[in-house]
């Protein structure tokens, strides 16, 4: 695999992503047109008196009185130039808001991804090595229970035990704002706040990857190349780590890619439980205040994120599996 070929592959994938992301944007735009109520009504409702003229005036001001297709055309044109519009609710540019709120979400997701894939794959690996022993049973039982637990409930239970009863971790937020920590102290403070949300969001995916890893390890172990390795005189440990492990990781990598969208969705719930100031929270607020520019921006950025992570996952896959040809 030469670097240049891989680079060409990445560029091609990025180009292919453009229509997908635009498509998602258009779909969401049209969908939001179906929503009852708009920004004008919400604003008017809040200011008390809601005369029809006033609402009409507001609509005209925000361009909401134009035909849907015209609005759509304007929006898509702006998106192509990375102008996501203005959030009238927050009185700020959507892109600025997104940038500000994206970091917490990325931090949460990144930590979760590393934690769930890493610990999940390891647990699955050891469960497979210890298959049908009490250790395997404990890991498998833990995984199947974690796999069935609702995210929001895990979050609340963790808060109950570790914040309310034991007082080890804070109940909400990303940092202790009143302390004005700086530098290293701030990092430690954020990490301290991150522990519970990250565990909450990880648990389900960790279980998923552990179960997948265990199953593929066992499946791979029955394949002929393992018999060959054994016939060459390799020990079980050598067979597991030199031959089976890499083969068994491939489905886990694929699954990690497939699950990124779901992970982003899960973070909405976790952000709500822990008052984590990320995109999910923002989406929720935007939805209820009919701040559709902002909501569309969130969809746009989520789709970009999902597509981007999928490309990264595919590149990892290409590097792991020599059978994949990137120039086709």
């Amino acid at each position: 695999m030469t670097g240049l070929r891989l680079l060409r592959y990445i560029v091609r994938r990025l180009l292919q992503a453009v229509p997908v992301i635009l498509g998602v944007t258009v779909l969401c735009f049209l969908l939001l047109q179906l929503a009852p109520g708009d920004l004008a009504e919400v604003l008017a409702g809040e200011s008390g008196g809601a005369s029809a003229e006033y609402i009409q005036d507001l609509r005209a001001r925000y361009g909401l009185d134009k035909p849907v297709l015209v609005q759509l055309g304007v929006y898509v044109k702006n998106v192509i130039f990375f102008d996501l519009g203005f959030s009238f609710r927050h009185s700020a540019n959507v892109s600025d808001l997104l940038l500000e709120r994206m970091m917490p979400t990325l931090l949460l997701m990144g930590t979760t991804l590393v934690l769930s894939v890493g610990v999940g794959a390891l647990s699955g690996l050891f469960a497979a090595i210890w298959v049908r022993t009490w250790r395997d049973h404990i890991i498998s039982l833990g995984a199947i229970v974690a796999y069935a637990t609702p995210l929001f409930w895990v979050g609340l239970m963790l808060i109950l035990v570790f914040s309310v009863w034991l007082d080890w971790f804070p109940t909400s937020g990303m940092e202790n704002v009143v302390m004005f920590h700086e530098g290293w102290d701030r990092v430690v403070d954020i990490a301290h706040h991150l522990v519970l949300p990250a565990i909450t969001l990880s648990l389900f995916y960790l279980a998923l990857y552990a179960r997948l890893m265990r199953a593929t390890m066992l499946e791979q172990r029955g394949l002929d190349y393992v018999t060959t390795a054994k016939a060459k005189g390799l020990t079980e440990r050598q067979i597991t780590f030199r031959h089976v492990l890499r083969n068994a990781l491939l489905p886990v990598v694929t699954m990690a890619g497939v699950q990124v969208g779901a992970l982003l969705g899960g973070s909405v719930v976790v952000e709500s439980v822990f008052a984590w100031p990320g995109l999910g929270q923002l989406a929720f607020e935007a939805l209820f205040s009919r701040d559709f520019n902002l909501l569309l921006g969130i969809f746009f950025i989520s789709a970009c994120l999902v597509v981007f992570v999928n490309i990264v996952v595919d590149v990892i896959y290409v590097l792991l599996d020599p059978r994949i040809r990137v120039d086709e």
Partner: protein
Amino acid sequence: MNTFRQRFFGNPRVIGGLAWLGLVIMVAIAAPLLSPHHPFEIVAQPFLIPSVEHPFGTDSLGRSIWAGLVHGARTTLVIAILATLASVAFGTLVGALAGYFGGWVDDGLMRLTEFFQTIPSFIFAIVLVAILTPSATSLIVAIAVVSWPPIARVVRGEVLSVKAREYVQAAVLVGQEDMAILFRQVLPNTLSPLIVTGSLLVATAILVESALSFLGLGAPNLMSWGFMVGAGRSFLRDAWWLVTIPGVAILLTVLSINLVGEGLNDALNPRLSDL
């Protein structure tokens, strides 16, 4: 070779799962008998601890938690099962057409599927429910809309593999029409993976439904387990059982469905589980 029945019912996990599911289903059916109170009715003092009269105590408004649990079982199961049926039907249709006809039909339908997988599904579900205004129907629609893509992929893969088998070619050679081949020759042979995926999807649907209800997007006039957790979260410090009890109910139900679904898979594909 053991029969399917022996492999399925001989599995203790399946028996455990079926036992709990049976209980939940019976409770859901008999809800009005088991709980004389309407779940939203205020029956006693708030925050009562469990007693003989109110087996699981009362919530912050003095509503019976037992009434909530039994009526919640109804809501949760009905919504999850209907949503699953809808998404299995739609996913099967898309996957079968894409896999059987291939070419531009396949390209188009699979692009559509990818589309739906690119939008973070839970956020999408939230927006859908909000747009359709929260109700049982909109929950079902939203869950179905975000859950069909995996079904479509499974069915497409199966159809592709069955389509390549020689009995399908034989049917073409004796002049059977495409739709008849798809429904008589191909689809019946994709049933077992579909049943397994579908049964596991019920579990996912319950999780999505309760998460939506937890966030306050549930059907407003129907009690559900997710809603109970959401309503209790502000009182976590003082009345932790308000959150814990319905959560455990969700956990056990989802766990049971997963156990039964896996048992089905093991029983239908015995080779995988034996080696």
